[in-house]
C-alpha cells in the first residue's frame, strides 16, 4: 500500500518539478531579452536605470542558481509571478479563473465517464455486431471532431440562429439576481461549452471501456454466468464491469489531461472565463508569464486529480488492495 503511493507520489513530484523547471528555463534560454519576455516588449523603451530597476524587480539581476531557488520558493509559496500586461499578480488572476475551468471540465468528465462506460460495455457485449460497429463508428467520428469547430457550430445554431442559449461568458454581467436565478443563469451559460467538451471527450472513455470489457468478457466466470442464463444487463453491469473498472479509472485520469486541453479551445470559442481562455488571451498578447503560470496551474490540477484517483483505486478493485506491491513498479 505505502510502496504504491510512495512510487506514485515520486512520479507526480517529478512531473511538477519538470513543469516548474521548464517554466524557469524557457524565458531565460530563449533567444532575445528575458526581461522583455517576462515584463513585456515595453522594457525596450525604458532608460538603462529603469531597466536595471526592472531587472531587480523580476529577479533577473542575480546569478542563475539563486534565481532558480527563489523561483522555486515563490512557487511553493503560491506566488506565480506578476503580469505586467494585466498589471496584477498572476495568482490572483488564476484563482479568479480556475473555478470556471473546474466546473466545466469536472462536469464534462463526470458525464462523459458515465455515458462512455455504459455504452462501451453495451458495445463490447457482441463484438462486431451491429450495435458494436455503429457505436464504434459513431465514436470514432465524435473523437475526430475539432472541439472548437463543434463549439462554433453550436454557437451559430443555438445561440445566434435560435437564441436558446447565450453566446458567450459564464454568467450575465452587471446583473443583480436572486441566488436561484443566478444558478439558472450560470447553467444556461454552461450548457453549450459543456455539450461541446463532452462530445469531444466522451469517446476516449468509450473506447477504453469497450477494450477492457472485451478483455474481461473472455473470462471463464462470464461463460458461467451466461450458462446460468443470467440477463445480458446483469452480466455486463454486475459481473463484468466491476472487473473492467480499473483500466477505466486509469483512463479517467489520462483523459483529464485531454479534457483540460479541450477546455482551452472550448473556453476560447465561448469566451468562457476559465484558465483556457486566459491561455488564449496570453497567446494573443504574448504575455509569457501568464502563459507559463496557466500551464503550471493546469499541471497542478491534473496531478491533484491523479492523486485522488490513485487513492480511489483500492476502493474500486480488491485486487489492487491485495497486490499493491506489483503495481508500484511504474510499468
Amino acid at each position, binding site marked *: 500500500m505505502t510502496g504504491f503511493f510512495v512510487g506514485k507520489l515520486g512520479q507526480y513530484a517529478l512531473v511538477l518539478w*519538470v513543469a516548474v523547471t521548464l517554466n524557469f528555463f524557457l524565458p531565460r534560454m530563449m533567444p532575445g531579452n528575458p526581461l522583455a519576455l517576462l515584463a513585456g516588449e515595453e522594457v525596450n523603451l525604458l532608460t538603462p536605470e529603469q531597466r536595471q530597476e526592472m531587472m531587480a524587480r523580476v529577479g533577473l539581476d542575480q546569478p542563475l542558481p539563486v534565481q532558480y531557488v527563489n523561483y522555486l520558493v515563490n512557487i511553493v509559496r503560491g506566488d506565480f509571478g506578476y503580469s505586467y500586461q494585466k498589471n496584477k499578480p498572476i495568482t490572483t488572476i488564476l484563482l479568479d479563473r480556475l473555478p470556471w475551468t473546474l466546473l466545466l471540465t469536472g462536469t464534462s468528465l463526470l458525464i462523459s465517464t458515465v455515458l462512455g462506460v455504459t455504452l462501451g460495455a453495451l458495445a463490447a457485449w457482441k463484438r462486431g*455486431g451491429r450495435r458494436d460497429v455503429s457505436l464504434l463508428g459513431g465514436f*470514432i467520428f465524435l473523437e475526430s471532431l*475539432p472541439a472548437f469547430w463543434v463549439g462554433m457550430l453550436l454557437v451559430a445554431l443555438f445561440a445566434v440562429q435560435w437564441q436558446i442559449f447565450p453566446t458567450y461568458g459564464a454568467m450575465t454581467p452587471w446583473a443583480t439576481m436572486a441566488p436561484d436565478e443566478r444558478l439558472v443563469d450560470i447553467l444556461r451559460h454552461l450548457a453549450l461549452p459543456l455539450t461541446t467538451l463532452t462530445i469531444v471527450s466522451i469517446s476516449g472513455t468509450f473506447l477504453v471501456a469497450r477494450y477492457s470489457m472485451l478483455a474481461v468478457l473472455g473470462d471463464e466466470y462470464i461463460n458461467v454466468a451466461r450458462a446460468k442464463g443470467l440477463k445480458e444487463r446483469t452480466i455486463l453491469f454486475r459481473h463484468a464491469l466491476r472487473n473492467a473498472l*480499473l483500466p477505466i479509472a486509469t483512463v479517467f485520469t489520462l483523459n483529464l489531461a485531454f479534457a483540460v486541453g479541450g477546455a*482551452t479551445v472550448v473556453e476560447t470559442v465561448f469566451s468562457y472565463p476559465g484558465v483556457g481562455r486566459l491561455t488564449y488571451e*496570453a497567446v494573443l498578447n504574448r504575455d509569457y508569464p501568464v502563459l507559463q503560470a496557466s500551464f503550471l496551474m493546469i*499541471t497542478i490540477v491534473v496531478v491533484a486529480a491523479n492523486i485522488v484517483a490513485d487513492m480511489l483505486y483500492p476502493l474500486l*478493485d480488491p485486487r489492487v488492495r491485495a497486490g499493491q506491491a506489483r*503495481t508500484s513498479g511504474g510499468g
Partner: protein
Amino acid sequence: MIWHSLRRNRLGMLGLVLLGGIVLMAVFANWLAPYDPSKLTGQPFESPSAAHWLGTNDIGQDIFSELIYGARVSLLIGVLAAAIAIVIGTTVGLLAGYRQGPLGAGLMRLVDVVLVIPFLPLMVLLAAYLGQSIWNLVIVIGLLIWARPARVIRSQVLSLTERDYVLASRVVGAKDNRILVRAILPGVLSLALAQFVLAASGTILLEASLSFLGLGDPTQKSWGTILFYAQARNAFLTGAWLWWVLPTGLMITLTVVGFALIGFAMEEALNPRLKASRAIAVSSKPAPKKQSNPGRATDTAPSEPLTSTVRTTPSSGRVDKIGAE
C-alpha cells in the same frame, strides 16, 4: 465469420477512400484551386458566388482556394509530427521493453511523466516561445505525444522477447543489439505503422487546435489557421459560418476520421489482447506454426503474425494498451 471481419474492414476501407481523396486534393492543389489563396481576389466578407464558391475572408482572399491549399499544410504538419512521435516512441518502447534494467525503468518513468503532463497547454507555451512557423508546430507536437505509442510498442516487445525464435537467437549466441534489430524490431514494425496512423489522426487535430489558438503560420494557412481568423472576425455570429466555418471544420474532421478508421482497422487486426478475447464473438484463425529452426528464425520474424500466441495479460493491473488517442 467472414462477414464480421468484412464489416470491420469496411470502416477501414472508408478511411482509405476519405484520406485518398484528401491527399489527392493536397497534391493537386495548384490545379484544383481557382485562385492563389494568398492573393486578394475579391472584396472582404463576400458571400458565396460563381466567382468565389465559398465567399471571401476578412481581407478578400478566396476561402475555397484557402481550403484546398490548407490540406497541404495540415497534412504536412500532422504527418511529420506523427512520424517524429513514432520514431521516438518505437525507440523508447524497444529499449524499455528489451532492457529491463535501470535504463528500461528510467525510460518508463519518463513515459509516465510525459503522459501526466497536460500536453496541449505545454504545446501552446512552447509554440508561443518558438514563434509561428509550421516547423515549430511539427517539433512541438511530435516531441510531446510519443509516450502512448512507446507504451504500446513496449508491451509488444515484452511478449516478443519470450518467443521461441528470440530465445533461439539468444541460445546461438547473438548479441543483444543484433537480437533487438534483427529479431524484435521487425516484429513491432507493423504495430508501429498502426500507431503512426492513429497518431496522425491525433496530430492533425492538435495542429488544428494550436493554429486555432493563433499559433499557426499566417503565411501558410492550415485549416486551423483559417478557423482562427474566422473566430477572430466573429464569423460564427453572422451567416458567414455556413461557408467559412462549416466546410473548413468538415475537412479537418474527414481527415482525422480517415486516419482514425485506417488505424483502428489495423490495430484491431494486430492487438494481441483483443484477438485473444475474441473467442466468443469470432473464432480466430489457427495460428501458423512457428519456425523452430534457429538458423532461419530471424528471417521469418517479419512475416509471422504478431497476434497468434501472445500472453494476454500484462503483469500489472494497469492498462498497457490505451486504445487510440
